[in-house]
């Protein structure tokens, strides 16, 4: 079983994280911003699992489980908010949602 370098895993995780960050910074559709946040959370989990595999401890995988639970709760609340926003403003543009009044 061959082994590879630790830094390659970290580089892959950082590339995925930066791609998610570019998505959050540049898109204006709120669904795409949520997808990009999911990509960033997944990349952070990848870094945790890589660290856990490096030291052969289960802690990294436990952290990934917590990130998974947090992402599930966050995406359910955020998608409910997207539905409300679309019913009230008829748009997905974040520029239109400057005010948080109802």
């Amino acid at each position, binding site marked *: 079983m061959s082994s590879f370098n630790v830094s390659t895993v970290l580089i892959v995780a950082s590339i995925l994280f930066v791609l998610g960050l570019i998505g959050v910074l540049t898109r204006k559709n709120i669904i795409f911003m949520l997808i990009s946040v999911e990509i960033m959370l997944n990349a952070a989990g990848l870094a945790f699992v890589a660290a856990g*595999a490096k030291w052969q401890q289960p802690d990294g995988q436990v952290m990934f489980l917590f990130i998974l639970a947090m992402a599930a709760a966050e995406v359910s609340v955020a998608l409910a908010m997207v539905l409300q926003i679309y019913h009230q403003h008829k748009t997905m543009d974040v520029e239109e949602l400057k005010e948080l009044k109802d």
Partner: protein
Amino acid sequence: MSTLFYISSLIAIVATIMVITRYHPIHALLYLVVSFLAVAMIFLSLGAPFIAVLEVIIYAGAIIVLFIFVVMMLNLGKDTALQEKEWLKPRVWLGPSLLVLLLQGELIILLLQQEGAAMPVTVVDPKKVALSLYGEYILAVELAGFLLMAGIVGAAHIGKHKKRNLHRFLQNGNGAGEASDVTRQQKQAESVINN
């Protein structure tokens, strides 16, 4: 094992690039599924089979299905894609993505400068994870239960389809009420004059 890792990480990066550049939401979600499956393959090659299975079930299964349901409920069609194409001009994304890519270049140089530590692939089996999860992390598991409960209640409350309600000063059609008051006073005045 290492070639498997390289191939799947390449697939993950390419699929993620496709995700953040698509105009149509469903196309982006399809590429997102591919990206999550590739990341699951990376987890498998890192020696974490339990996490790979969870990635497939929860990320590629549950969360993507939530997104697809919302896209179906909002009825986002070709109009949204055209609108998104209008919003996503190069003038908008060129500046931030250039700066972020510079930061990432710094990070990669920093990671490549130190001499690489070899990473032996040994499987951390689910039993070890479960013993750690219900041993030293039991408090955090309960907190995650609170978080999921709050997520359910919050999503049910926010997603409830309610009417757009006005401020309490604007309720009961206050302007119309004033107008009717004025007409009533005028009628009273007219009746007094007639009498």
